[in-house]
């Protein structure tokens, strides 16, 4: 760790000259006619908590299973710490996996489940005892070591599964939907626990999830997958604030998308005209003039105010409130534009609706506006 720290705590943000822990090159996997993984490349660095995010059937689990050695690639290679994994069977890989079903051995106690992996490595009895004790302390299950998995709650089983995978101190820990089996409240709490444990042990995690909130909270970097390919790889902020395609903008959070044409492209801004309005963008992206493009706007990045006035100038649209959804902390306004398109706007409820005489409601005329830096440029 220390040697790596000397370079950078976060090598993935500045990969030049850094040696990745996991290198995936041109990896392909198909099942019959179905291509699960389509020629992908990826580097993952020591200490990362990397999330693979995507809908079901996007190939994220297949990728994880290939890293663990349960599936054989049809092409390309996987290197872990510089070693080609092509002919290394699952039982000899420096990886451990936490299964979605947890796959705890039902006939063994918590203690024996955790010791199983160490026994396979021929670790001495007293060392096994110490290491099992340490890991149980880490996941706060010392009092449950004599229990069988059926005698534990879902959250406790999840922690046993994590402990069993971590106790072998793998170079890479693979987690397949680690929180999917927990209820919503426990899941939120466990997200932070998982990230804390990862920080404490310093092991590189690769997490497969279909839950974007989970991916956003957990990961140092994440990859959005679709149809066996990476749509975008980046930090949660990059993915959310600067999605580069309509798919990613729509998949992560929600976005209002306008189709348009680039009319101005100068060093500090571009101007896109769309059916609804002109959009002025100043975050320095450059697009060829006259090209067809899509512009995305996050609902919470749009200001909404009651106004009879028509829109004047770029980054403004007027419309009529078609529907209001009260979510407690925020309200969602569905605003109908002249063109008939519906734009979602989210605004925090800083006052109780009952005590707010000026509140926006059905059929109000409103003016929408946003900062020039808020619009996102999207490819198809």
């Amino acid at each position, binding site marked *: 760790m220390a040697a790596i720290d000397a370079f950078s705590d976060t090598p993935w943000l500045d990969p030049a000259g850094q040696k990745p822990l996991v290198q995936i090159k041109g990896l392909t996997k198909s099942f019959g006619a179905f291509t699960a993984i389509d020629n992908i490349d990826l580097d993952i660095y020591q200490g990362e908590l990397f999330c693979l995010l995507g809908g079901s059937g996007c190939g994220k689990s297949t990728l994880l299973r290939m890293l663990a*050695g349960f599936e054989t690639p049809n092409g390309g290679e996987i290197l872990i710490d510089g070693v080609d994994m092509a002919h290394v069977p699952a039982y000899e890989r420096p990886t451990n996996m936490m299964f979605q079903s947890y796959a705890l*051995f039902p*006939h063994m106690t918590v203690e024996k489940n955790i010791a199983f992996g160490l026994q*396979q490595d021929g670790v001495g009895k007293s060392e096994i005892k110490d290491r099992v004790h340490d890991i149980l302390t880490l996941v706060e299950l010392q009092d449950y070591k004599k229990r069988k998995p059926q005698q534990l709650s879902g959250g406790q089983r999840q922690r046993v599964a994590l402990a*069993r995978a971590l106790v072998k101190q793998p170079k890479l820990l693979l987690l397949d939907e680690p929180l999917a089996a927990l209820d919503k409240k426990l899941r939120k709490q466990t997200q932070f626990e998982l990230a804390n444990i990862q920080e404490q042990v310093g092991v590189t995690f690769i997490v497969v999830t279909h839950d974007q909130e989970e991916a956003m909270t957990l990961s140092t970097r994440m990859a959005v997958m679709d149809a066996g390919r990476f749509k975008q790889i980046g930090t949660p902020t990059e993915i959310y604030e600067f999605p580069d395609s309509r798919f990613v903008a729509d998949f992560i959070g929600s976005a209002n998308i306008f189709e348009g044409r680039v009319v101005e492209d100068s060093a500090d801004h571009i101007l896109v005209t769309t059916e609804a309005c002109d959009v002025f963008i100043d975050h320095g992206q450059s697009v060829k003039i006259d090209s067809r493009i899509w512009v995305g706007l996050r609902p919470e990045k749009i200001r909404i105010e009651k106004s009879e006035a028509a829109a004047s100038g770029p980054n403004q649209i007027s419309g009529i409130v078609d529907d209001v959804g009260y979510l407690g902390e925020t309200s969602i306004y569905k605003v109908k534009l002249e063109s008939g398109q519906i734009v979602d706007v989210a605004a925090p409820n800083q006052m109780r609706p009952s005590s707010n005489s000026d509140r926006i409601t059905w059929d109000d005329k409103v003016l929408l506006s946003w900062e020039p830096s808020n619009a996102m440029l999207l490819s198809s």
Partner: protein
Amino acid sequence: MTDATQPSEKLPASSWMRDLARRAQENWRLIVIAIPFVWLLFFFLAPFFIVAKISLAELAIASPPFTRMMEWSNNGIVTIRIVFDNFAYIIDDPLYFDTYLNSIKISASATLLCLLLGYPIAYAIVRSGPVAKPIFLFLIILPFWTSFLLRVYAWMGLLADQGTINNLLIGLGLIDEPIRMLYTEFAVYVGIVYTYMPFMILPLYANMERLDGSLNEAAADLGARQTTTFFRITLPLTKPGIIAGSLLVFIPATGEYVVPDLLGGGNVQMIGRVLFNEFSRNSDWPVASAVAIMLLFFLVVPMMIFQYFQGKSSEVR
């Protein structure tokens, strides 16, 4: 419950039907339990007591051929006669004890053979593809579509001195003299293993099918090779299937009559044949009943004790 009773009070016209329905609903649990209880009472417990009663009687020239247990004499006195001679006779004569032992030896060995052959078969079926699996299961059950007796006769044709197997081997020039197979212990083993194999495979299959496939992957992931995974994960988790299958083979095989009679001839003594001979040839119902009761105790009592402890240990899980 109370909600269901209210409409019946309002509508007295067809109240008896509603009443019946309500009572059935209230006593539903009782009815459900009563069905197997009545079944076992009539078809297991009652015959058992009849046989037990006969075993305590004496042989008599009468119809049925044994003395009555209770007799009312004219002066109103009831005489109860219980004779333990039959049990004393069975214990005294080493023939019976040896036959019990031989039966248990043969059926235990056959059970082990069924397990050794059936376990990999069940494992292969579980692992087979979605097209092959129902076909394999169908093939396992297929023999039941013909009579058990017919299948044993077929084995006689295969194993006889002039049978299919010997003729084939002689025809191929591998042997000059036919190998004696029919009317040997070998033939009895073949018959028992063949007929009882499905009873081993099916419970094992049901057990293995329920196992979470990711357990094997988890073991491999934690560094276990296939043999380790088998002995430490698969085998312990299929123990219920092994026990169920073994009991389903061992218990009926011990009392088996047809296979040792047809394939073993007079050369293989098993308790089922002895029992049949006592009943039909010697017409000695009391001794035959005593043989049956003893068999029951030899088999069922150890099983019950075993089941009891098995049940206790699974409660702890």
